[in-house]
């Protein structure tokens, strides 16, 4: 077991070293070595995952006589397999995609180093290895994004990424230092055991250590996963090679969710921090989605889409659904990776033939011409609101009867319900000639998605957190006062229903009322199109700092 887990992490490093040394001799064929090593590492990680699934005990494997440890547990094996799976696809894709680019060998060296850094990050059993690998991911990503050394733009945005990631490193380093000072060990297993045994044993500046450290870990996760105010790098880093975009959106940016999961034994004692995480995730999800919808640049829209998804993932952590965040990470990774890697061939095909059937969907979505047919809106409203709810409740009852006792579960159901209702509402708005057929298909897809989501996420829950008591503890840590929760649910429901109502009545009155608020909407649109001026503020701040630096140098005569 020990050798197996070490081999998984070290193979990409060996590959990087070989390519660096022999790229000149073997030319472009050296990429095959990288692919072979990644494949081997992936197969070994599958074996490790199989062992973990079969119930092998969690192990902390010391590296020699040092304080460094590698961790064999469900989280590390699952994520190592996901990372290597995505990395393998990116490797295979890059063999031909990057063939015409300069620095072909160097690209594979960086790709292998990135894979190794990500692997060490997820299997780190001690704080030092975790901090080092966390740090190195940012540095290597900077160089991967700047693969095209002719492009000033690529480096400009790679720099944004580096600085945001470095900002995110700082709280993690602080958290590691605080934990070491409190427990006199770097070992995560030992620290977690002690925290679980006595969570209130230590204080920092009058605050519980668990809260302070959880807050710092949360901050590190926010920077890595592009949460609101630390998101500006993500939509702009599209000048890097497509395989790097795929790896970044499918894997690297998800690291925040991993980090929160890794420190779950701390978060379980930090209710307030979980609430903050929920709010930040929620704001990010809303802003990300809003900005995505208003982009006219498809790549930036994809970037903001990832931001919205990351917000949702962090929000899931905030409601105690830690394993669901991992499933989300996996599902989003596969989905977004596929989108990036297939983008090139889609563009090529579209140049020859757009392939879009001129059907009802086309006339609705592209030509903005809904069909004339109308159906009784009351009936439609009932279908829209009731069907998704029935599907969601039915699916969740299948996996757990006490599911509805958890506030976090209610929040998730709520989101599922709103999304489902929105889907059916959109179907109704299309005013198809055969609306029942279209709605039937929508409901069937919703049923399949919800059932799949519920069963797979339940499986993730059982695998990652086999201790039912701990799972319940995570959910209850995220709970808020029952009355406040109920009031919030009512308010949010009213807001959403009011939104639907306004949309409906606006359409009924041919947008006459909407005209009155046109100026307001235009101002709002201007605000969104400037991305809330966040980038401008950051640019202004960094320029001010550079001006201060220059003035200091002039005053001090450059000495």
């Amino acid at each position: 077991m020990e050798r197996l887990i070490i081999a998984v992490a070290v193979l990409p490093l060996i590959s990087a070293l070989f390519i660096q040394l022999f790229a000149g001799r073997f030319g472009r064929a050296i990429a095959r070595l990288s692919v072979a090593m990644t494949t081997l590492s992936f197969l070994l990680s599958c074996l490790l995952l199989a062992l973990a699934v079969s119930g092998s005990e969690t192990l902390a494997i010391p590296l020699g006589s040092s304080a460094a440890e590698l961790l064999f547990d469900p989280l590390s094996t699952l994520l190592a397999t996901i990372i290597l799976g995505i990395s393998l696809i990116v490797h295979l894709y890059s063999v031909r995609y990057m063939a015409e680019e300069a620095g072909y060998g160097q690209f594979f060296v960086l790709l292998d180093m990135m894979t190794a850094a990500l692997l060490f990050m997820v299997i780190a059993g001690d704080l030092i290895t975790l901090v080092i690998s966390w740090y190195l991911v940012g540095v290597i990503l900077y160089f991967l994004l700047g693969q095209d050394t002719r492009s000033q733009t690529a480096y400009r945005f790679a720099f944004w990424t580096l600085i945001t990631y470095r900002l995110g490193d700082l709280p993690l380093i602080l958290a590691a230092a605080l934990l070491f000072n409190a427990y006199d060990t770097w070992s995560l297993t030992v620290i977690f055991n002690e925290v679980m045994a006595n969570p209130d044993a230590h204080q920092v500046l009058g605050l519980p250590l668990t809260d302070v450290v959880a807050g710092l870990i949360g901050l590190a996760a926010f920077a890595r996963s592009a949460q609101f105010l630390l998101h500006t790098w993500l939509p702009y880093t599209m000048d890097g090679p497509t395989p790097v975009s795929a790896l970044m959106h499918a894997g690297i940016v998800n690291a925040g969710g991993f980090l929160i999961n890794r420190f779950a034994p701390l978060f379980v004692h930090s209710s307030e921090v979980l609430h903050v995480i929920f709010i930040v995730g929620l704001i990010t999800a809303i802003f990300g989605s809003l900005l995505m919808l208003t982009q006219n640049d498809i790549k930036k829209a994809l970037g903001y889409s990832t931001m919205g998804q990351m917000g949702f993932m962090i929000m899931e952590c905030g409601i105690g659904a830690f394993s669901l965040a991992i499933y989300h990470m996996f599902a989003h990774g596969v989905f977004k990776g596929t989108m990036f890697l297939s983008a090139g061939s889609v563009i090529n095909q579209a140049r020859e033939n757009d392939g879009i059937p001129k059907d009802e969907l086309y006339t609705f979505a592209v030509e903005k011409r809904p069909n004339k047919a109308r159906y009784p809106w009351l009936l439609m409203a009932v279908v829209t609101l009731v069907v998704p709810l029935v599907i969601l409740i039915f699916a969740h009852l299948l996996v757990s009867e006490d599911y509805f006792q958890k506030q976090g579960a209610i929040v998730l159901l709520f989101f599922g319900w709103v999304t489902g209702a929105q889907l059916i509402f959109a179907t109704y708005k299309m005013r198809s000639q055969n609306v029942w057929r279209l709605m039937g298909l929508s409901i069937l897809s919703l049923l399949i998605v919800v059932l799949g989501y519920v069963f797979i996420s339940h499986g993730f829950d059982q695998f990652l957190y086999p201790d039912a008591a701990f799972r319940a503890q995570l959910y209850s840590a995220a709970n808020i006062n029952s009355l406040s929760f109920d009031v919030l649910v009512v308010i949010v429901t009213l807001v959403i229903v009011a939104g639907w109502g306004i949309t409906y009545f606006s359409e009924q009155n041919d947008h006459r009322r909407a005209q009155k608020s046109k100026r307001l909407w235009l101002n709002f649109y201007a605000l969104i199109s400037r991305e809330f001026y966040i980038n401008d503020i950051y640019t202004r701040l960094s320029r001010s700092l550079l001006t201060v630096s220059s003035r200091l140098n002039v005053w001090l005569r450059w000495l």
Partner: protein
Amino acid sequence: MTDFLNILLIAIFLPLFPMSMLFNAVVENIKPKGLRVILFILWPLIGLLIALNSEFVIPDWLLPLALSTSLLYAIRMLSLREVNQWTGFLATSIWSLLWLPIMQGSSAALLYEFAIGMSVPLVLLVLLAAGLEQRFGAAYTGLYGGLARTIPRYAGVFVTVVVAAIATPLFPTFFFMLDMVVEMISSTPAAALVLLLIWLFWSWAGARLIQGLIVGRASNNKIADMDMSSISFYSIVLIVLMLGGIYLAGAIL
């Protein structure tokens, strides 16, 4: 009074503002690269030698002064474009932090190891800057750029050396910074925060330096790239540095 004079003397070599300006004036006025190399190796060692062999009480104001000096030079590095000057400022920012382990009573051997481990990347930078001056007449960012395309081997080595100098894992400066944060967080949390800020500015300045030199289109002129023996030399030193970093990590963490 003797204590103060002692500190004043040491503050020249383990630079504290405004004495730090002396070191940077020396860097600016010494042109031969051999002398610069000696300067960058010996300067902090002289400071440590004096500090460890004289008896004086370290006043409370020294910690904020050392941190302020380091922060000041880290901020000033952001707008520098001349590589030698940049290296001098980074040296000042790094060496002023050596006061921290002295205040904590770290062993002499460890202090010397840290000083050497942190100075070697700076020495390599001095040598690389000399290489730039030889090829282009000046070691200046934003002036020619495109080194990654014009002289790719040199650019690769340059980037790695800068990365080593700005406290990236697994180089010694990284473990020094980590150790200092761990030591400071319990006694002086504000100092730990300042250390992290300084660290961030080093990364910022390093990225600006790299971008100013390696990014851009290839030069039309034929410029000789680094030869294999030089690459071997830099690679060996960097590997030894990395191993040294891991050794130091074992010693302190």
